[in-house]
């Protein structure tokens, strides 16, 4: 049943630019509809800020339906907030209590420098993909799609890894700020399929090295990434990344 409208206090990280130190500022909002999403609440607060001549809270978002991976902030200490398997754009106010103070911060990691307020630079993730997160095929005539049969369970498992939206929550949640879940997901997706098999060890080697170069930490099997992942990608992908990486140690390139 629909709840009554609620009042919440938002303690939000404000930082005017990469060089600025940043600080928390608190905003109180009354009459919050529990069916609102968390980002819709930020929209409402921003409209008021603009009307009173203040700078709105900058945050990234686009699809607002949990698929593009653009949104992302730490809510009450958790990447994307308290609900499992949910991006912050799909987090609804009904999960909070009337009168609650909600703390909102950007992703914090060396690999993700802050641009403004809750907006961070995640281009490091693109560079990890560029280091091998693909199958090396050109555009043009290809064998008929059905000439390659892939057992359904394998295709499904590859899909589970491919479901990553590249939001960076795994990095934000990890005490070491490791990007292993992200990197492992792409390595696993492609290594599980015959199309990606041929270059799987080379891929793993290059992507892992790129991840290190970007300043992301090492994985020590804490598992916070899996808990924070809005697509609930399993930490098994990291084990597979390690296997593929190890194999690359024994094969010369």
């Amino acid at each position, binding site marked *: 049943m629909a709840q009554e409208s609620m009042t919440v206090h938002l303690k939000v990280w404000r930082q005017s*630019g990469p060089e600025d130190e940043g600080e928390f500022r608190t905003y109180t909002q009354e009459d919050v509809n529990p069916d609102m999403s968390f980002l819709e609440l930020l929209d409402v607060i921003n409209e008021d800020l603009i*009307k009173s001549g203040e700078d*709105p809270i900058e945050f990234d978002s686009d699809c607002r339906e949990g698929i593009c991976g*653009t949104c992302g902030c730490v809510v009450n200490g958790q990447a994307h907030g308290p609900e499992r398997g949910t991006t912050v754009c799909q987090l609804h106010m009904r999960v909070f209590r009337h009168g609650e103070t909600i703390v909102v911060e950007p992703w914090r990691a060396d690999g993700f420098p802050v641009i403004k307020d809750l907006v961070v630079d995640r281009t490091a993730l693109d560079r990890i993909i560029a280091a091998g997160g693909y199958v090396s095929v050109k555009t043009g005539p290809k064998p008929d799609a*059905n000439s390659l049969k892939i057992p*359904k369970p394998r295709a499904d498992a*590859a899909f589970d890894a491919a479901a990553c939206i590249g939001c960076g929550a795994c990095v934000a949640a990890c005490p070491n700020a490791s990007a292993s879940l992200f990197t492992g997901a792409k390595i696993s997706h492609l290594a599980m399929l015959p199309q990606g098999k041929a270059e799987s060890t080379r891929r793993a080697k290059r992507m892992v090295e790129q991840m290190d170069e970007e300043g992301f930490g090492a994985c020590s099997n804490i598992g916070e990434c899996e808990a924070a992942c809005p697509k609930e990608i399993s930490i098994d992908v990291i084990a597979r990344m390690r296997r593929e990486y190890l194999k690359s140690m024994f094969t010369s390139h």
Partner: protein
Amino acid sequence: MSKLDSRVPEGPLQEKWVNRLHEIKLVAPNNKKGISVIVVGTGLAGASAAASLGEMGYKVKAFCIQDSPRRAHSIAAQGGINAAKNYPNDGDSVWRLFYDTIKGGDFRSREANVYRLAQVSNNIIDQAVAQGVPFAREYGGELANRSFGGAQVSRTFYARGQTGQQLLLGAYQALMRQADEGSVEILPRREMLDLVLVDGKARGIIVRNLKTGDLERHEAEAVVLCTGGYGRTYFLSTNAFNSNATAAWRCHRRGAYFANPCYVQIHPTCIPQKGDYQSKLTLMSESLRNDGRVWVPKKKEDAKKDPKDIAESERDYYLERKYPSFGNLVPRDVASRNAKYVCDEGRGVPPTGRAVYLDFADAIDEQGEDTIRDKYGNLFHMYHKITDEDPYKVPMRIYPAVHYTMGGLWVDYELMSNIPGLFVAGEANFSDHGANRLGASALMQGLADGYFVVPYTIGNYLANYDIPEATTEHDAFAAAENEVEEGVKKLLKSDGKRTVIDIYKDLGDVMYDEVGMSRTKEGLAKAREKIVALREEFHAGVKVSGDDGFNKMLEVAGRVADFLELAELMAVDASEREESCGGHFREEYQTDEGEALRDDENFSHVAAWEYNKGGDPVKHKEELVFENVTPSTRSYK
């Protein structure tokens, strides 16, 4: 009135594309390295075009407004992608896919383009599979297919409810591979704000770096625009928050014709609006209509009741009743309009009365909850999360919302606009869907254009045309940059009472009311007046805070300024098209049974509008010639 040259090749339909490919002049490999191409937008069309052009040896610059090319709005497409593979052996063929698409578009698209689309559809599936796109498969290991709105064969390939995501990631990965090779430079968080012409030819763009606010000049021998549609003219739509028409509109202001702006698709299965705090609506894939049954109560008095208290005999499964052969699978425009009608009659369901039920109870009874979960699990999950209602237990509530725009910049057969050197691909062009797009055709068109058409046809331009010399120091770049700068400054200076979003919402209301699912001459005239008034109010003083650095509301302000111009053109186009076709329904033109009434004698043409600063837009017509099919009345009865 000037005549538009579509440059459709001579010869039989089946051979046109092959012949054109043979005729196309090739650019010598050594020359390609010196030729740069700008691709704006990295959705399916943009990412696939940029990746393919990079592979071919061009120097490519790929721009996107998002922080990563992987986030373009194609990512949100749920349902699937069509191809004429005929794997299920249910009688499909290239011809049938072509015919369904042209009929679905209500005979308002160019025959040769649509045929080519059907022809290359199969290559797309082969390409995607080779890239490792994890399509759904059968237990035997073959690819799975399903049927989708408007088709009587199973030709839709899918990857759970995330087909767009998986196809886009495939194209994105191909793009990043080229970035790694050094053939493509990726420029994220850049918004194209002007097209630069030298001697009438596209020679570059001005972009705003959204991270720093700096304006940048970029030069190239050709520009490929893949910036999507203009659905967000309606404010509320299923398009992503940042989707916009600015790049296309700025090209229009530089002389590119805008074709058929009134063709807008209103998708029948979206989650109904709940409150005025919303800035976008969520689509539920229409694949749900394969198993869900659409209904409202027969009697107005029952509308407020709990659905479980409405007896089977008191329910009106109106699509099944009115269209027995297609039932719940009628094309999108028909499904949407009928939802509007039953709600207008007062039979819409709570809480707002602007909603109908999509009920899975029978499907769950017949197939079991597990089967339904397997097919639609993620969609049900998403619905549950947003509405707090469990669709396994209670019927979903849905209502139409703007989803896709069939109109766009005019292009010829080679996807070049009337500005030489400016190519337009994907939803941003007008070319393939006529007045209504069939389900699972958007992904097909985006990838067809990007992988298999533009990379070849662009060579024809580069090898044949005399491209003027120019660097970014050229006066044309300076002038364009100046204009952009003035525009940005003006927005920051104005300081009225109402915010960008306030005015934008008003625009959305006008568009839904008068330029929506059902239109009239008077309504459109009224809309035009209101749009002009809103535009004046906007320019007289809209409140934008912040400075010229990173400032999202400033970005939105620029886009709304353009929507306020485009909206007027949409109203004009809708008013001048005195017939009903596809998504464009004029109340004055309907059959006795309330179905759309086309006027082939007078309106079998593309209306391509020329920008006319300060005056009325100028219409140019491209007559549609049907040599292979005979336009018939669409009937889904």
